[in-house]
């Protein structure tokens, strides 16, 4: 077992799980955020149908990430969750409401407006809470002796509110480029017109967060301004993706616009990881401090290495089967 750094392997697995979750649940949460602004009920049908086959599988990654965390990095689990106590509750409540709304909206008639509201509200709250987790994480946690010692609303700071709203805008952008890709006619036109507006919002948040982050902690400042010039590539690539989204959307290159949005998320995510690496509970604990015992990490690794390829294959297959445009009236009972 000593041959491998199990903690490092697990860090990669969980980082991968988180970005898979962000990318995949991101666009369906984004559709929920855009839901109240849809031009009509037909558009809402198309929006829901475009993610209906896959959204539940997308949330697989959240649960796998949460479960993997307690198995591999219990310290993160036992500090992050208490620190985000209220935020985690809001996220769960949001996800549950939108999940239930998803199932029942398809089957409802008179109560449809209620389910629409639950879907939109749940999506917004869940997205905001996730963004706030990111902000709180960058800012670090007040701990003593491996225990969170801060207050219930420490996580809710101006910075985390901005990252929260930023993720809402980001998910909405993902949702919009996804919808352009998956729809046609007036639904696509509407979504396509949204993209530049959302892009402005995302860029503003991106700029604020980028300028703010180095000031949070001397360690982050050093990381960005002392030795590692190569990491500047990450924000540069993220910006390149932003330009790519704008250009591709204007030219009507739907797939490219969506892929650039995914790229923007990936590079921003890597940039955030680099800022704090190898600290998993900033500012005090590294991923090795937070790790569970090697025998526990190893025992769990066997199962995960077995099942992750199956989930990936299955996910890829789902997307393949349901490729192409969703039309108004499709898949509608």
């Amino acid at each position, binding site marked *: 077992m000593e041959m491998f750094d199990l903690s490092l392997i697990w860090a990669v697995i969980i980082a991968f799980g988180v970005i898979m979750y962000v990318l995949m649940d991101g666009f369906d949460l984004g559709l929920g955020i855009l839901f109240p602004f849809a031009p009509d009920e037909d558009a809402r049908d198309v929006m*829901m*149908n475009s993610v*209906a*086959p896959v959204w*539940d*599988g997308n*949330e*697989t990654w959240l*649960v*796998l990430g*949460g*479960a*993997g965390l*307690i*198995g*591999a990095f*219990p*310290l993160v*689990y*036992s*500090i992050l*969750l*208490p620190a985000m*106590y*209220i935020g*985690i*509750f809001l996220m*769960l*409540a949001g996800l*549950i409401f939108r*999940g*239930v709304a998803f*199932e029942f909206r*398809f*089957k*409802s*008639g*008179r109560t*449809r407006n209620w389910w629409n509201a639950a879907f939109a509200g749940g999506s917004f709250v869940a997205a905001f809470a996730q963004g706030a987790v990111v902000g709180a994480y960058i800012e670090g946690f007040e701990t003593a002796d491996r*225990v*969170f*010692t801060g207050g*219930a609303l420490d996580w809710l700071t101006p910075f985390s509110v901005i990252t929260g709203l930023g993720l809402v805008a980001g998910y909405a952008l993902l949702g919009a480029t996804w919808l352009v890709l998956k729809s046609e006619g007036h639904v696509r036109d509407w979504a396509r017109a949204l993209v530049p507006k959302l892009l402005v919002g995302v860029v503003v948040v991106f700029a604020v967060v980028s300028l703010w982050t180095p000031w949070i902690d001397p360690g982050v400042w050093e990381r960005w301004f002392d030795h590692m010039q190569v990491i500047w590539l990450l924000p540069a690539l993220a910006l390149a993706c932003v330009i790519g989204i704008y250009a591709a959307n204007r030219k009507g290159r739907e797939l490219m616009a969506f892929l650039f949005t995914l790229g923007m998320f990936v590079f921003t995510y890597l940039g955030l990881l680099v800022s704090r690496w190898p600290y998993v509970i900033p500012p005090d604990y590294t991923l090795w401090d937070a790790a*569970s*015992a090697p*025998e*526990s990490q190893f*025992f*769990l690794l066997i*199962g*995960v290495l*077995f*099942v992750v390829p*199956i*989930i990936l294959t*299955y996910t890829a297959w*789902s997307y393949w089967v349901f490729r192409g445009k*969703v039309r108004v009236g*499709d*898949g509608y009972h």
Partner: protein
Amino acid sequence: MALDPILLSRLQFAFVVSFHAIFPVFTIGLASYIAVLQGLYVSTGNRVWDRLGLFWTKVFAVVFGMGVVSGIVMAFQFGTNWSNFSQMAANFIGPMLSYEVVTAFFLEAGFLGVLLFGRHRVSPAVHFFAALMVAVGTFISAFWILATNSWMQTPDGYEIREGVIHVTSWVDAIFNASFPYRFTHMALAAFLTGGFVVTGVSAWFLLRGRDIDAHKRALSMTLWLLLFLAPLQAFVGDEHGLNTLEHQPMKIAAMEGNWETESNVPLLLFALPDRDLQANRVEIGIPNGASLILRHDPDGVVPGLDQIDRAQQPPVWITFYSFRVMVALGLLMIAFAVAGLVLRKGGRVYRSRWFLRGLQGMSLAPFVAVVAGWFVTETGRSPWLIYGVLDYADAITPSLSGGMVLFTLLGYIAVYAVIFIAGVYYLCKVINQGLDEHDDTEDLDSHDRPARPMSAAHVPFDDARDDRAPNRS
């Protein structure tokens, strides 16, 4: 009195886990029943088994969906409210809970989809195989959860280094002293739950004269099963109790309402336990009963709560009465199973209105019994989260305030109320639709995906919408 985060966290956990547990306990039993139905269809070729299988698969889909949604919350409870416990025990409980998730996903990704949507895409034999694998999968999920819980009751295969649990033997830790008993007891409880729901629903249809032939078959086969399982559960429960007597004697003392360690202890039917008095105010019992049951000897010595500090005693009221509720319902189940046998003569079992009405009501009994049983085992180990190792006060998240827990407790109650009311309401609609000849899964479309179990049931949630022009589309 200031809000106590420990008490509120315990209430919160009890609430979310009770509301979650009623779904899997039903789906575990129902999955096996569906596998039996599909197996009968394959071996006999009789369409009626397939129709019943389809009907119960729809019910399964809805309940499974509700279980998944309510289960998400559970994955976070240990971290949000019991972070010191998580940190201390993560080396064991982390892999266990993760393996449960891995098992569930493996199941969902593979066989559940075939079971729910593959009826017309694969052969009956393959479909049966998928049903069988789903049934096995639900048991594997239960295996991990019950191994974790049992380890917390009777920890084994570990050592503590620098305040953290390290697993020294996975086999000893997983197959700890109480695990075989708890697993068997719970597996039978799941079968009984599935069985009584099936008989209750079949009775409902028979009373209304719908699909008589199919539901007679379902009722008959399930009653045979219950006739065997209900008494078996009493036996297994007794064995489980003896195991508890050996490893957690104070839980037994609380279950029996026995304050003093002595011989010739009566089996109490009714009592008013009083902690301040350290005795029962009123008792009605069968002389020597507890001694006989627990020691197989009227002079047997039964442990009493006097062996531990008052502060360490479990909340006797809850343990004592939860246990009586569970046992009483268990005995009622045996009575109904036996009555079913007696009424078979002349086919009265399918006609007797009081019996069928009784069965309808009994479909709720196993749920109450299961929750009561968990109340017994969870309150009876008080104040220990890991028995003899870690108590509630040391296990709780140190930064929690009572107000925070109260806020989320009320929040979860609101969330679960919506899920539960919408879910049960919809479930009733699915059941009311009954066995239709037309199978909706024949015309699958884009939002029918295995990942969304509830989409297997195509029943409208409410009346047709009236906010749209009828000539649309």
